[in-house]
């Protein structure tokens, strides 16, 4: 068995791979469905209806996609620089805390002031969350995978502590939750009677800006160079450490905005279960997108659809909603494998002496 590289692959093939990977993962869902004893076609149908069956469900999917776009962008930009930000989950909560610290009554003002303030506070808090591991990496050589990962746990416990202490809402009848975000600081609804909110617009704008920055600016050039060959980038005069620290801040800020979006746009207040793992799912989104910011938007829609669809199917048919997590994680693995087959082909060689 011989593995040989293919030549250049066309754009079309490159873009088809994540789509095929996603379909393969969805198809493989039939196995756990079968194990659970559910009628497979009916299950798929329920998943589809769960997303596309009504305007409400569709906007629900978009609402779910909003934080995923943010965390997907966070992962995509960081990974592009080969900075393994696995801490988006924690940075999301930091962003939410930042929003709550500023937006629940500390200051008041018109929406045109409050909303940007809340976003900036959240973004800054998220940025700090990744800056720490990045500094530990550049100054001490400490692997940022482990530090950003462990920080997630620390931050979550910290949020618990805050919600039982300084941030606690005295009106919440004992539940550990924060005071609600002021109306002036909340991200407005986009469609009446639906949960979809302006956070989606912010996310889309962020994706466009990220795409332009990555492909058309010198900053984006440096990120790509450092990510693909840090030694050559350094040799060429690029300050790799400064680039990494910059990406860390932006990546953390984006994950922080995911938190802002959930707190100031969707839920209205902070609890410890604000995120069902958006930070980790963001990594899958980024990989499915091939680390492209515009691709992140599409991949986020896919992952959100899987979650919303599986939730709905689960309620209708009693199959565990962990199926969604299964499909999403299988998507990650299949896009990884798919990427391999895009770059290499496997030839089963005959005996020595066989030509090509």
């Amino acid at each position, binding site marked *: 068995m*011989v*593995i*040989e*590289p293919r030549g250049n692959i066309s754009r079309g093939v490159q873009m088809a791979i994540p789509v095929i990977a996603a379909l393969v993962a969805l198809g493989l869902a039939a196995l*756990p469905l079968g*194990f*659970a004893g559910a009628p497979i076609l009916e299950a798929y149908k329920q998943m589809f209806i769960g997303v596309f069956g009504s305007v409400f469900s569709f906007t629900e999917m978009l609402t779910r996609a909003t934080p995923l776009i943010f965390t997907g962008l966070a992962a995509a930009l960081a990974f592009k620089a080969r900075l*393994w930000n*696995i801490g988006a989950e924690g940075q999301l909560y930091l962003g939410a805390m930042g929003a709550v610290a500023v937006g629940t009554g500390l200051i008041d003002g018109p929406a045109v002031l409050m909303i940007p303030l809340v976003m900036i506070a959240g973004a800054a808090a998220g940025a700090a969350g990744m800056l720490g591991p990045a500094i*530990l990496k550049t100054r*001490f*050589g*400490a*692997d940022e*995978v*482990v*530090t950003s*990962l*462990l*920080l*997630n*746990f*620390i931050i979550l*416990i*910290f949020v*618990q*502590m805050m919600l*039982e*202490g300084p941030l606690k809402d005295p009106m919440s009848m004992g539940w550990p939750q924060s005071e609600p975000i002021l109306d002036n600081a909340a991200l407005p609804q986009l469609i009446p009677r639906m949960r979809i909110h302006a956070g989606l617009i912010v996310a889309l704008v962020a994706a466009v800006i990220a795409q332009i920055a990555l492909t058309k600016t010198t900053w984006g050039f440096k990120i790509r160079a450092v990510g693909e060959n840090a030694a050559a980038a350094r040799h060429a005069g690029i300050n790799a450490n400064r680039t990494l620290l910059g990406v860390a801040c932006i990546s953390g800020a984006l994950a922080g905005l995911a938190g802002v979006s959930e707190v100031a746009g969707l839920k209205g207040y902070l609890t410890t279960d604000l995120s069902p793992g958006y930070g*980790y799912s963001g*990594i*899958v989104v980024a*990989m499915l997108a091939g680390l492209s910011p515009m691709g992140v938007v599409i991949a986020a829609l896919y992952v959100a659809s899987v979650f919303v669809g599986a939730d709905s199917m689960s309620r209708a048919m*009693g*199959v*565990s909603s*962990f*199926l969604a*997590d*299964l499909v*999403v*994680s*299988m998507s*990650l*693995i299949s896009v*990884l*494998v798919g*990427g*391999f087959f895009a770059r*290499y082909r496997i030839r089963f060689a005959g005996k020595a002496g066989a030509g090509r």
Partner: protein
Amino acid sequence: MDMLQIFLNESFWVASLRIATPLIFGVLGALLCERAGVLNLGIEGIFVVGAMVGWMSVYAGAPLWLGVIAAAAAGGLFGLFHAILTVPLGLSQHVSGLGITLFATSAASFLYRTILPDVSSPPRITAFQPMDVPFLSDIPFLGPVVFQQTALTWLALIMVGVVWWVINRTPLGVALQAVGDNPDAVNAQGLSVYKLRIGAVMAGSALMALGGAFLTMSAFDAFFFGMVNGRGWICIALVIFASWRPGKALLGALLFGMFDAFQVRLQTEAGAVVPSQIFLMAPYVLSIIALVIVARKAEYPRALLHPWFKGHR
């Protein structure tokens, strides 16, 4: 507040060793993978798999040791998956590992939820009981601490010795050390780089799964979602702290166990003044600090994270 009293209390040491046990398994497992050149970030998920499979086997009626074997086998299987993605295919070890963690965790959770859909509180099994070694268990202090631990703790301690022997005293171990430094050297001597690496990752993953199995079959007797709670990641940090050596791995795990046992007891003493969450954070903070201290000087296996391909690519 008498902190020294804590050290004199027998139960502190018993707890230390008990808390350290899953970490011993995990660090040994990660050590095997990384010495061979492969980073296995699937460890967190493999812990969950080991916990679930071990427990489920016993719940289904199998004897405890069969459950242990089943857990190890399941771990080995996920290890094989990660190994195939990263060794012959040479895909990103970071992404593959994270994917395995996500996949393993969701698979274990789905399986558990599907087999036991309507339980209000997690069902329990008869877990490993503290051993009662005649005569030795009755030695004051040393007896309860060492000789009344469960069989799985003993297994962990034995594995430290086994892993040490294999790596340092057998030809297989020398080959393993070589493949993590310069796979070309191994290939030039007619050995298979692929087989060595895949084998190491499978064996390491089996050990990792035992760490998880300990949680549901010895420390506790039921499976809860979120029970692994980052132990896998802590092991990844501890491996570096242990310079990839089994002896230091044991030491690191024990120190960690002692620290964790200490902070739990400290909590009961100081709980009124300091919020409990500070203590809960402590293990993770400690891991980060440990990592930062050793990071500069750490001598990573030279070929770690570098895929090796047969022939020309």
